[in-house]
């Protein structure tokens, strides 16, 4: 009796044409009042919005409205990031393995409804 071969064992994952493997990106987010930074590794196709959300949860802050509107932004190289759908790959280019962001708060007066 011939041994049974599990087809799954011989299966190899082959990138499709045009697909490139993008290494993960070591992300650090600093927040001035916090004692420790937020560190996490993300795939390069992760969005700025997702990182902002994770960092805000880590630091225990949230967007909110009282009489004013409080909103948190990621800042990168001195620029506030407003496109939450932008990916790390789009932001950093293909050769970056790490990114350092700052979390800053914008308070807009009288924006509450």
């Amino acid at each position: 009796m011939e041994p049974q071969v599990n087809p799954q064992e011989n299966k190899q994952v082959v990138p499709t044409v045009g697909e490139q493997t993008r290494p993960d990106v070591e992300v650090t987010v600093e927040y001035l009042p916090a004692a420790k930074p937020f560190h996490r590794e993300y795939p390069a196709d992760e969005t700025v919005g997702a990182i902002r959300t994770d960092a805000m949860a880590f630091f225990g802050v949230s967007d909110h409205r009282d009489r004013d509107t409080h909103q948190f932004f990621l800042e990168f190289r001195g620029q506030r990031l407003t496109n939450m759908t932008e990916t790390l790959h789009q932001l950093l280019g293909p050769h970056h393995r790490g990114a350092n962001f700052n979390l800053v708060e914008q308070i807009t007066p009288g924006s509450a409804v």
Partner: protein
Amino acid sequence: MTVRGLQETGQRVRESGALWLGERATTAWITAVVFSHGNGVEEGPSRWKVSPEVFGTVTRWGKPRGLCLLAVVHTHLHGIPARLSRADRQYSVQIPDMLAVVIGEGGAELDARRWGWYLYDKHDYRQLLARELHERFVPENKERLTVRRADADGVWELTK
């Protein structure tokens, strides 16, 4: 150091302010005073407001040095009580254990016991009692205190 710098910046005609930085710990020492003045800082007779860009420059300068924001200090001019106004509460950093300090007389009030001392606790700033101040704060002149000025363009050495 703080009151001298705030008096020079505000000239008693507009509010001025500074950030106290240090290592966040059970016993935290203030090791850096950063006066926020210039581009990205609104300074008026009843308003001192720091933009996110200024906090960004201070973050880039301070974090590699192991510094955290411990307190936001600002002045109120003559005739205005050294108490946190509604706007002060709204615009200040709302993080547990953050300290907010108001110095009256445009920064000329030298008696720290007459300053307004507030701690962010349970979703609001509460004024610290005299007993708490006495128990929790120890004034000490640190010889190695770092002093800088910050605006939206960067953090700078003081020129005078």
